[in-house]
């Protein structure tokens, strides 16, 4: 936008396919490997589950291609051997046996088996990225003006992509979503814990050069949980505070004017009154907003988006919970699965559009452009974790000013000048914690945001009882 170039249709499709594959891949990994063990007790799966009953449960709730009593017995045996070795590796010292784990042993074993299946599946799913993007992670194909992978617009490459897409989408439909519903059905009380107030999405997946109108996941903002009041979001209304962040003080600034001047000292952690984080505090019309799967799904649902609405309504019906329960930790984790299913299904139409273009001889992937002496522009995307904005000013053919506002600063950012907390901080208030020394419940809400930090939550001081308003359950 800053250099005024329109990319060819194939480049737009390939970017959408890469982003779609990113959603499929990331959300599977988040659910099974970064979030599931907050709900699933592996020790119960190993010591208490009956493989035959697990197989019956799995047949009942999912369409997984692998299963059966022998399979679940083998998974259980494999984990037993692992535990008996005395080297527990990544499963060491966790909260196994915690009273907040509520799944029956067989559901624990089913989910644990799928944790291992998903580890393999995600390695294959990531190959979708490598086909057009050289490698995953850190793709190398994106260039201003389009994509560089002109030689990969060939039948064998597209067919390989299609095959991997099918395998991944089948896993989402037949395993991820059924597991999500099965686990959620035992944790319905989490439909009233961990919610926030305002939601914003830049939207993603342009299906023509008309943005934001053609975005498959729409752009919008919803304040005060008003599902009927979703409005178009406007980047001009974004500001960032640094009052509580380890940067030189200054008022709230729009990213075009934003500054990033870190304090020139060993930063002191002063959460009561002073600075306590490297995150800035982004605001929309001066309000904190949650971004990410829940925001995208709520915005789409509020607009009456056909595909999103159908899946949301079906999930609510199957769980027997009202739409109000979406504003919660359960809603956030469910929304992630819902959008994975919807976006994954949509990818087929993009693959077909690419095939149709190649068939008629259109293999254009790049539009030449010239660096202007002066210019400015912004790029708004929605990546798996949430809304991502970039703002640039160009002068003398060089970058004069550059700022970006990323999903985790929206969600995890600190308080602002008026003391208003960011979404995560708001979501944690009122969380019931059975044992402050083992705050499993806190992890559930923190992980539900898929924070982009190696996440270590410390609740070791008895004073935390006041901070989190712990009540016995």
């Amino acid at each position, binding site marked *: 936008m800053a250099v005024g170039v329109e990319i060819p249709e194939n480049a737009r499709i390939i970017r959408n396919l890469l982003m779609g594959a990113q959603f499929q891949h990331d959300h599977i990994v988040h659910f099974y490997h970064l979030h599931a063990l907050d709900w699933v007790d592996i020790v119960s799966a190993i010591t208490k589950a009956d493989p035959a009953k697990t197989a019956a449960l799995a047949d009942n709730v999912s369409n997984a291609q692998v299963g059966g009593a022998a399979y679940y017995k083998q998974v259980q045996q494999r984990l037993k051997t692992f535990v008996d070795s005395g080297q527990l590796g990544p499963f060491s010292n*966790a909260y196994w046996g915690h009273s907040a784990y509520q799944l029956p042993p067989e559901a624990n074993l089913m989910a644990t088996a799928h944790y291992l299946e998903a580890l393999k599946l995600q390695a294959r799913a*990531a190959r979708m990225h490598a086909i057009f*993007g050289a*490698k995953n992670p850190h793709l190398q194909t994106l260039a201003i003006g389009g994509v*560089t992978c002109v030689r990969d617009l060939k039948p064998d490459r597209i067919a390989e992509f299609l095959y991997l897409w099918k395998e991944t989408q089948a896993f989402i439909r037949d395993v991820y979503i059924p597991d999500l519903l099965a686990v959620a059905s035992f944790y319905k009380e989490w439909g009233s814990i961990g919610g926030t107030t305002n939601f914003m999405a830049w939207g993603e997946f342009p299906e023509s050069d008309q943005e934001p109108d053609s975005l498959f996941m729409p752009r919008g903002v919803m304040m005060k949980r008003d599902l009927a009041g979703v409005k178009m979001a406007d980047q001009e209304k974004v500001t960032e505070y640094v009052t509580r962040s380890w940067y030189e003080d200054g008022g709230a600034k729009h990213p075009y004017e934003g500054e990033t001047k870190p304090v020139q000292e060993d930063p002191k952690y002063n959460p009561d009154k002073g600075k306590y984080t490297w995150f800035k505090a982004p605001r929309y019309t001066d309000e904190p907003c949650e971004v990410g799967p829940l925001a995208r799904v709520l915005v789409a649902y509020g607009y009456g988006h056909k595909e999103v609405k159908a899946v949301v309504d079906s999930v609510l019906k199957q769980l027997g919970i009202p739409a109000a329960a979406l504003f919660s930790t359960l809603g956030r984790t469910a929304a992630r699965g819902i959008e994975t299913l919807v976006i994954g299904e949509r990818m087929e139409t993009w693959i077909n559009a690419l095939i149709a273009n190649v068939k008629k001889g259109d293999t254009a992937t790049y539009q030449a452009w010239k660096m202007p002496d002066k210019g400015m522009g912004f790029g708004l995307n929605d990546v798996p974790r949430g809304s991502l904005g970039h703002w640039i000013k160009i002068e003398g053919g060089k970058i004069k000013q550059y700022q970006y506002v990323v999903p985790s600063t929206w969600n995890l950012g600190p308080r602002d000048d008026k003391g208003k907390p960011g979404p995560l901080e708001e979501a944690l208030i009122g969380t019931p914690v059975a044992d402050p020394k083992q705050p499993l419940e806190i992890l559930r809400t923190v992980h539900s945001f898929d924070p982009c930090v190696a996440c*270590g939550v410390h609740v070791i001081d008895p004073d935390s009882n006041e901070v989190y308003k712990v009540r016995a359950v």
Partner: protein
Amino acid sequence: MEPEKAFAEKLTRRGVSRRDFMKYCTALTATMGLSAAYVPKVAEVLAATAQRPPVIWLHFAECTGCSEALLRTQYPYVDDLILEVLSVEYHETIMAAAGQQAEDQLHQAVKKYDGQFICVVEGAIATKFNGGYGKIGGRPFLQIAKDVCTKAAAVICMGSCSAFGGVQAAAPNPGGYKGVGDALGIKTLNIPGCPPNPVNFVGTVVNYLLLGKLPDLDDLGRPLFAYGKTIHDQCPRRSHFENDEFVEEFGSEEAAMGYCLYKMGCRGPETYNNCPVAKFNNGTSWPIEAGHPCIGCSQPDFWDEMTPFFEEL
């Protein structure tokens, strides 16, 4: 040979054929620069040992892309690597424990395996302001690294950040970030890249398990089996370079014909890595195959030294 057979049988049960497994072992053996005679031995090592070597994986200033890269390994899939080959005692991304329990696990593992564990480090270390720009739970990376790395049997730096400082060490480097070797004044084995190819990590570990020592290194601490030659010298487009056949615009006819990317700013001539041979994601592709010039991501200080990208050397 028995464990190898057992392992192959196990793979078969999980849908991986014995042929595929041996194919992988052959490729890995070749990547490691060992003769074909080692193939069965490599298979044996991957068939799991009685005591899995303990690994403590530290995260400092990084994006977790190197951990993600390792998760993409196939043959052995990462679940085998975690459950049957290695014992990953501490890894913030994949471990179930958090907070105090995670901290305790780190201290217990360092104590229990003092002098025996492999320490893998992902990310750079802040050194300015007493290391104040980078902390975990209030403790500077610098202090954590001093406590843990010095007790390891070997320190493996996974990725360009821990090896050479990476993006946070790029000018003006406000936090005084450095690679681990530099920050601590110790020798480390470096597997640079942004991210590195996981096959080179697996190759290093197998070398350690197979021969009881780390592989031979160059003067930057990089295994010679992976970083002994430039990209340029191994590039399948090399003949186009010799014939003066260059791409001068992405998406052009020359790009479609797979001509040399030198004039698009390719850093292949200055970059030591095995990307053209090993490729990424189970041999699917690598940057030049996708029409993108090499950005030199496994060379020291590449954010300063290799930029501006897309401009001819």
